[in-house]
C-alpha cells in the first residue's frame, strides 16, 4: 500500500466501473476489478494488513457503486443505536437563552451496490478505528450503551475532518430557571440523517432543550431534518425505531 501522503483520496459519490477502479482513503485502499463478463472482484486492504475479498456477480457489464459516509455504528461491532458526544468544553446557557453550536461527530464510510434502482450495503470501514469507541450514559445497571466521542466545538459545517467525522449542528435552549452547563449530548443517531459533498459530511440538526417536566428537570434531545443541496447518504443499517432518552441535567 502506498503511504497516505502520496495519494489523492477518493471522493464520496457514485462510481460506474466498466473495467477497474482504485479507491484510496486514509489508511485503506479498495480495488475493484472486472474478472469476467459479469463478475467483478472486490478487495479491501488496510494498513494493518487486514484483507476483505468479495466476488460480485452483476446482470450488466458494468458495476455501479456508491461511496458515502454512514453513521458510526459498525466498528468494532454493532452494539447500539445511540451516540454520546462529550464536549471538550461545556456550554453555559443562562436562563431563557438559546445557542447554536457545531460539533464534530465520527462517521464511517459505506459502500453500496446500485442495481435496478436499489442500493445494497456492500461493505463498510472506518478510517479512524483508534477513536471509534463505546461509552455508557447512565449507571452500569440501567444505563445506555452508546458510541462515544469527545468532541471539540467548531465554527461551522466546513470544519469536518474529511473521512473521519462530519459536523452536526446542535440547537440548545434553556427553559429552566437559572443558568446551566451542558457538557454532553446523547441521542439515537439512527434517527439522524447524513449528507455528503465531495469529501465532507454533515448530519441533520439535533435540538436539545433543558426543561422542567412536573418536578423533574430534563434535557430533551430531538433530531430535526435539514434542508440542503448535499446528497443524502444511504442508510447502511436497517433503520429501527428506538426510544428517545431522557437525559439528566448536569
Amino acid at each position, binding site marked *: 500500500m502506498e503511504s497516505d501522503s502520496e495519494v489523492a483520496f477518493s471522493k464520496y459519490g457514485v462510481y460506474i466501473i466498466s473495467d477497474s477502479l482504485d479507491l484510496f482513503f486514509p489508511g485503506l485502499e479498495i480495488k475493484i476489478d472486472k474478472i469476467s463478463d459479469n463478475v467483478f472482484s472486490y478487495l479491501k486492504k488496510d494498513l494493518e494488513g487486514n484483507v476483505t475479498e468479495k466476488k460480485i456477480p452483476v446482470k450488466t457489464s458494468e458495476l455501479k457503486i456508491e461511496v458515502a459516509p454512514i453513521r458510526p455504528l459498525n*466498528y*468494532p*461491532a454493532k*452494539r447500539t443505536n445511540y451516540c*454520546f458526544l*462529550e464536549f471538550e468544553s461545556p456550554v453555559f446557557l443562562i436562563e431563557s437563552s438559546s445557542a447554536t453550536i457545531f460539533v464534530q461527530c465520527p462517521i464511517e464510510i459505506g459502500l453500496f451496490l446500485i442495481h435496478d434502482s436499489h442500493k445494497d450495503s456492500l461493505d463498510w470501514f472506518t478510517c479512524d*478505528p*483508534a477513536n*471509534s*469507541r*463505546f*461509552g*455508557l*450514559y447512565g449507571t*452500569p*445497571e*440501567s*444505563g*445506555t*450503551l452508546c458510541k*462515544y466521542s*469527545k468532541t471539540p466545538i467548531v465554527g461551522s459545517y466546513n470544519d469536518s475532518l474529511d473521512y473521519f467525522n462530519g459536523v452536526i449542528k446542535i440547537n440548545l435552549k434553556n427553559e429552566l430557571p437559572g443558568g446551566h452547563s451542558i457538557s454532553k449530548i446523547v441521542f439515537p443517531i439512527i434517527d439522524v440523517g447524513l449528507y455528503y459533498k465531495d469529501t465532507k459530511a454533515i448530519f441533520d440538526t439535533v435540538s436539545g432543550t433543558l426543561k422542567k417536566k412536573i418536578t423533574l428537570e430534563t434535557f430533551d434531545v430531538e433530531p430535526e431534518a435539514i434542508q440542503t443541496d448535499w446528497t443524502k447518504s444511504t442508510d447502511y443499517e436497517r433503520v429501527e425505531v428506538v426510544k428517545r432518552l431522557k437525559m439528566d441535567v448536569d
Partner: protein
Amino acid sequence: MAIEFLENLASFEITGGLTLLSLFIGAIIMAIGVIVARTFRLIFTKYYAPKLEKDAAQNLGKIIYFGIIIIAFLVFTGSTGVDLSGLLVAGGIFGVVIGFATQSVVSNLISGIFLMIEKPVKQGDSLDLPDMGIDGTLIDISTFSVRVRQFDGTIIRIPNEKFFTTNIRSLVSTPVRRSENIVGIAYKEDIDGAISVLDKAIRKSMPFVLLSPKPEFRIKELADSSVNIEMLVWHPREDWGEVGPKLLKVAKNALDEAGIEIPFPQRVLWQAKES
C-alpha cells in the same frame, strides 16, 4: 357388519355404564383432540411465537397444547357419562401415596412453575452458577429441569429444584460488564508512568473497552516482589471474550515495549559468616 360390530362393543360393559363402545368413541375424541392441539401449537409456533419472547412463547405453546388436550378429555368423560367421583376419591388416596414417593419430582415441578413466574433469567441469557461451577447459556426451563449449554458446547441438565435454590449470576442483565486483572511491576519502576503506559495501550488496542466510564487502575498490593496494579475496564456485556482474556496480554506487551520490568518472585538469602 359395522353396525353389528358397534352393537357388540356397546353390549360389552366394563364397569358402571362404561362400555367398550364409549371407550372407542373416547379414543376417537382424544385422538382428534391431540391432532387439533398439535395443529394449533404448530400454527402458534410458526406464526405467533416469533413475535413473542422465547420463554413466553414456549410456555404459551404448552398452555395451548395441554389446554386443548384437557378440553378433549372433559368432552370424552362428558360423552361417556363416566362418574369420576369414585376415581377422585381413589385418586386422592393414591395421590398421597404417590406424593410421598415422588417428592423430588413434585418439588422440581413446583420449582419449575416458580421459575417461570419469577423469571430470574430468560431463554438465551448467559449465566453463571457459582455454587455448581457451571456457566453457559440457558436453553430452556421445562417442567422438571433446566438445560444450560456450557461455553465448551456441552449441554447440562439441572433439576429445577437445584436451579431454583442456587445462586444465579446473570451475565447479560446489564448493558455493560467489568473485567479485572492484576499486573505487577518492579519496585524501582515509576507507578504513574506504568499506569499511563497501560492506559494508552488499552485505549489503543482494545476497541471494546469503554472510554466512559474510563479504565481504572488501582494499586492492589505492595507484594513480596512487585507492586501489583489492578486494571478495571468496562465493556459491552456481549464482548467479555474480546476483553477479559486479552487484557493481560495487552498489559504485558505494553510494559515490555516501554521497558518496564515485570518481576518474577525473588528471594535474597543472607548466609551467616562462619567464625
